[in-house]
C-alpha cells in the first residue's frame, strides 16, 4: 500500500516539478535573450541571489507577517466557531447574518485597515491582526454554521425518537457533522489570512512585514529584492495552506468518509 501511494505521489509531484523547472528555465532564458531590463522583468537567478543574501532580513519580515496572519487566523477561527454556535441556536439570526457575511466576503473589506490604523499607534500590529481576524471570522462562521445546521433529517428524527435533548443532538450530531466543514473553512481561511496580512501592510503602519518590504523595494527600484520578498510571501502562503490541508487529512484519518 505504501509503495503504491508513493508511486502515486511521485506521479503527481514529478510532472509539477518538471513544469516548474521548465517555466523558470524559459523565464531565465527570455530575460537573457531579449536583454530585458530588471525593472521590467528580473531573472530567477538574480531573485534567488537576493533571496539568499538578504535571507536574515526576509526571514524577519516573514516572521512579522506570518505572526500577524497566525494570530488573526486563530482569533478569527475561535470567534467564528463561537458565533456559529450562537447562530445555529437561533435560526432567525442565521438568516440575518449569513447573507451579510457572504456579502462582506465578496467585497475587499481589508481597506478597513486604513480606518483601524487611525485608532491605534502607528507602530501597532493590532489593526492588521484585527483585519485578518475579521476575514477569517466570516469564512469560518459561514461554513461552520452550515455544518451545524445542515444535518441529515433522518439523524435528527432518530435522535428525537431516542428522546434526546437539544444538547445531546448538538454533541452527537451537529458538532461531528460540522467538523469537516471547519477543516474545509480553514483550508480557505489560511491562505486568505496570509494575503490579508500582506495587503494590510500597504495601508501604513510599521514598515517591517513582507508586504511593506515589497512596496518599499519597488519604490526604490530594487526589483530583484522586491521579487525575493514576493517569493517569501508565496512560501509563507504555501506553508499555511499545506498545514491546513495536512490537518484536514489527519482529521479524515479519524474515520470520516473521503
Amino acid at each position, binding site marked *: 500500500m505504501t509503495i503504491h501511494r508513493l508511486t502515486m505521489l511521485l506521479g503527481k509531484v514529478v510532472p509539477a516539478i518538471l513544469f516548474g523547472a521548465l517555466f523558470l528555465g524559459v523565464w531565465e532564458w527570455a530575460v537573457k535573450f531579449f536583454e530585458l531590463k530588471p525593472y521590467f522583468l528580473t531573472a530567477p537567478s538574480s531573485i534567488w541571489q537576493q533571496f539568499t543574501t538578504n535571507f536574515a532580513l526576509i526571514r524577519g519580515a516573514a516572521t512579522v507577517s506570518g505572526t500577524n496572519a497566525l494570530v488573526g487566523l486563530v482569533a478569527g477561527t475561535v470567534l467564528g466557531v463561537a458565533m456559529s454556535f450562537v447562530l445555529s441556536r437561533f435560526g432567525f439570526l442565521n438568516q440575518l447574518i449569513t447573507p451579510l457575511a457572504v456579502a462582506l466576503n465578496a467585497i475587499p473589506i481589508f481597506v478597513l485597515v486604513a480606518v483601524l490604523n487611525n485608532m491605534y499607534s502607528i507602530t501597532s500590529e493590532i489593526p492588521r491582526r484585527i483585519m485578518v481576524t475579521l476575514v477569517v471570522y466570516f469564512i469560518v462562521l459561514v461554513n461552520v454554521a452550515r455544518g451545524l445546521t445542515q444535518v*441529515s433529517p*433522518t*439523524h435528527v*428524527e*432518530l*435522535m*428525537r*425518537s*431516542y*428522546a*434526546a435533548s437539544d444538547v*445531546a443532538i448538538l454533541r*452527537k*450530531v451537529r458538532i*461531528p457533522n460540522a*467538523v469537516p466543514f471547519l477543516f474545509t473553512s480553514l483550508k480557505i481561511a489560511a491562505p486568505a489570512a496570509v494575503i490579508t496580512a500582506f495587503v494590510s501592510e500597504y495601508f501604513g503602519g510599521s514598515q517591517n512585514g513582507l508586504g511593506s518590504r515589497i512596496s518599499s523595494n519597488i519604490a526604490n527600484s530594487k526589483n530583484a529584492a522586491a521579487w525575493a520578498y514576493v517569493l517569501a510571501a508565496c512560501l509563507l502562503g504555501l506553508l499555511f495552506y499545506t498545514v491546513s490541508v495536512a490537518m484536514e487529512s489527519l482529521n479524515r484519518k*479519524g*474515520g*470520516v*468518509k473521503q
Partner: protein
Amino acid sequence: MTAVSVRNVSKVFNQGKPNQVDALSNVALDVKQGEFVSLIGPSGCGKSTLLRLVANLLEPTSGEVTVNGKTAAQARLDQDYGMAFQQAGLFDWRTVRKNIELPLELKGWDKQQRSARADEMLQLVQLPEFGDHYPWQLSGGMQQRIAIARALAAHPPLLLMDEPFGALDEMTREYMQGELLRICAATGTTVVFVTHSIPEAVYLSNRVVVMSPRPGRITKVVDVSLGGERNEDTRNRTAFFEAITAVREGLRGMHAAHVGLGNDDR
C-alpha cells in the same frame, strides 16, 4: 395487551392556510403484542405520517395514540420503540459498534453494558466481524441490518419501520425480509412496517392495512393466514397469492375511484 392503539386520529398540516393537507382522516388501528402489521398505499396517503404519530415525532390534530398502554409521548421518553428508515441513517463518524451503542449512550448505560449489548446485536444481525468498520465500508444491505440492530439495541418491544428495504435490490430485499422475520421471532418484537411492495407486505405481515389518499385513510385490512413459520416456500403457497390478490384489489378499487376524482377535478 395492545402494543399500539390509534383512535380516531386525524392529522392536518398547515391548517387554515392555502396549502392545507388532510394527511390523515379518522384513522383507527389496533396492533397486538407480537403482531407484524404493514401499511401499504400510494405515495402521499399518510403512511409515514401515521408511523410518525405512533413514534410521537408528530402530534395528532385530533384523536389519541397509545403505545403499550402509555401516551405516545411517554412511550418515546421511555424509548419503548426503535425506528428504522429508508436511509439507514448511520453516522459516518462512528464505527458500526458505536452506531449500535448510540441509543444506549443516550439512556446512560455504562461502557461495559453497551459493549456487551453491541456484541449481542452484531450476533443477532449476523455481522459480528464488522463492529470496528465504518458504515461507508459496508454494502447497503449490511448498513440496513446495522440500522435494525441499532433500532433493537435497547430491546424495545416495538419496531417502527418506514420503507426500510426500499433502496435495496430485489435479491437483497428478499434476504432482508427473511432476516427481519428471524430477528423478530427471536426477540418477540411487535412491528409496524411501511412499504410500497405488495409481496413484501404479505410475506412479512399478520395483517396488511391498505390506505388511500386525499384525505389519508384506511380503506381495507387484509388478514394474512400464512401462520407464523415463513420461508421461501411461503412465496409459492395459495394463501400467499390469495392475500396478494386481496391487497391488490383493495389498492385497485381505490385507484379507480382516485382516477375518477382526478377527471372530475379537470
